[in-house]
């Protein structure tokens, strides 16, 4: 392994690189869902929003030659899909889980339909910041190619965590999620709060989709997401509805996903199906380790139907 390879050291490095490369869509979708769920609503349709975001970002980047405009449009599309979900859920006797699943199928189907002409062409990609300039090792430099959206995702996670705890706006969102009665008593329109929170959550998921199609893997096709939006929604429960923990969970998930190819690339080839399942096994193990029969899920918003 002397000729350009790092041998066994390549594995932790690849996991770090994997965390940086793969986790961004998880970060955006999970903090978006986190915000939505803190307001007392579940949006299972974010997989559809993610795919729609990926498709529209790619299409716009292709048409205008500007990937950042693509990101903006993806956020807009996500916003609209979030608003649609919120709007439907506000109608009487509507179940938000069922609506979410409906919107997931709608979003992916619509994206596949509209995305047909974009499969072949090559759209311009988002650039990356080179944080590995200090190193002589090409692998380290490659691992530290950081996309702006990744940085934005980290900033957003901390900002959202702070805002939920320390601003009046954040308090109102939590109030709508914890107790509708209390919110009504102080004159807060729960419907409007949830509409806004769900729309912003959708916009985040749209940006996550833009990352997929415009940076990594960086092209549009129908297998692009393969369920990442759904996994990210599950990560929110794993992260106990805390944006910063959503960030850690996403990073962990990205790193675990890099284990299988990294091990195979240094010649550990037995049982790669098992290593491919590492992210899920890890999540499950952590869930079991942190749960307790003495208390219910800590941090769960009181109005959230799914965990009542």
């Amino acid at each position: 392994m002397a000729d350009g390879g790092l041998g066994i050291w390549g594995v932790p490095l690849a996991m770090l690189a994997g965390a940086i490369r793969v986790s961004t869509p998880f970060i955006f979708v999970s903090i978006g869902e986190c915000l939505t769920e803190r307001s007392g609503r579940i949006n299972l349709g974010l997989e559809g929003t993610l795919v729609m975001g990926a498709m529209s970002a790619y299409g716009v980047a292709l048409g205008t030659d500007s990937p950042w405009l693509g990101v903006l449009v993806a956020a807009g599309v996500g916003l609209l899909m979030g608003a649609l979900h919120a709007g439907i859920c506000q109608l009487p006797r509507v179940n938000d889980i069922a609506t979410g699943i409906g919107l997931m199928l709608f979003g992916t189907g619509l994206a596949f339909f509209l995305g047909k002409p974009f499969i072949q062409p090559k759209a311009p990609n988002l650039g990356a910041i080179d944080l590995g300039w200090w190193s002589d090792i090409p692998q380290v430099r490659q691992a530290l190619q950081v996309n702006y959206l990744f940085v934005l995702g980290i900033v957003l996670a901390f900002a959202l965590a702070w805002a939920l705890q320390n601003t009046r706006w954040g308090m109102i969102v939590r109030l709508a999620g914890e107790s509708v009665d209390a919110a009504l008593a102080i004159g807060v329109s729960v419907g409007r709060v949830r509409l806004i929170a769900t729309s912003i959550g959708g916009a985040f998921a749209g940006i996550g989709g833009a990352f997929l199609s415009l940076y990594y893997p960086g092209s549009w096709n129908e297998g692009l997401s393969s369920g990442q939006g759904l996994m990210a929604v599950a990560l929110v429960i794993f992260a106990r509805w805390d944006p910063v923990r959503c960030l850690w969970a996403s990073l962990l998930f990205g790193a675990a996903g890099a284990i299988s190819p990294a091990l195979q690339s240094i010649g550990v080839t037995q049982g790669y199906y098992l290593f491919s399942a590492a992210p899920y096994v890890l999540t499950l193990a952590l869930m079991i380790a942190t749960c307790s029969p003495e208390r219910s899920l800590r941090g769960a918003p009181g109005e959230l139907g799914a965990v009542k």
Partner: protein
Amino acid sequence: MSDKFTIGRRGLLGGAAGAAGAAALGLAGAANAQKPLVVGFIYVGPRDDYGYNQAHAEAAAVLKKMPGVKVVEEEKVPETVAVEKSMESMINMDGATLLFPTSFGYFDPHMLKMAVKYPKIQFRHCGGLWTQGKHPMNTGSYFGYIDEAQYLSGIVAGATSKSGKLGFVAAKPIPQVLRNINAFTLGAQSVNPKVTTQVIFTGDWSLPVKEAEATNSMIAQGVDVVTCHVDSPKVVIETAERAGIFSSGYHCNQAKLAPKGYLTGAEWNWERIYVDMVNAMKAGQAPGNFVRGGLKDGYVRTSAYGPAAAPAGKEKADAAKLAILNGSLAIFKGPLKDNKGNTVIPAGTSYVATEPKLESMNYLVEGVVGATS
């Protein structure tokens, strides 16, 4: 351009309107004495995926230009009972008399079931192992020995690589995939015996993020030429180009995706098979039941060399191509060891491309870093 294919043919068939439409079409067809030959193509994925399905769709486009031939296509048909419905609607509504269900899982039981139900319709499947006596005579299969093209790609890759490490992103360890990996490696070793091929199995045919991860982690280990066997090589080729390493294509020509690093690639050329079969149908004969061929038959080919391909590699690949064409070069010949040290082909034995043992390959040759399980 492709919008009409996304409207579910099956959805129409379900309704009463569909049934009425089918009857009307059937009558119209019977009234027309000069009715065209209708050929149906069914794809498992999108037709423009820069990969397996596109290779078939490109050949279907050639048939469309033939006089007296009408082509109907449906894409993204899962390998379930859904494909039976697609076939039935092509037969009943479009009047198709020759069907090409192109994906591996369509063959057994779906296509065989339809062949029994519609004995006058000809079914030809890509890749299935058709056996006389076991399968109906109105069915058949065709396939190309693309490992010959992979061998040539391997020569170019081996001669161009500076690190002597090649990378292969593969979906699943099935015989066709292993044969490609082995042929690619043997080709590379024929110009540089020290070459190794690193294989990463992603686990499924279309997993873009995993494919990108696999490519990146091989690049991190010093691999400087990658190729792949997945449904759509687009992600692998683009990732390699972005990292500034060389790539070798698969299924169809991906030179456009990597103008700098694309060396060459192993491509299908289904057009030959399809045109032959359509001509047979027009002449009133049944197309061949068991059609196999490689470079010599024109069923597979290599992409034009890219600017980065080493001149020595091009020369040797051209020489090897000639040797394959005149039959003096066998890719799989003894003594050949697998990467666990077992002899898989004894000295003195040499397999021609048609050898059935090659179609059940379950090993990786010496020099491949990877395992089949």
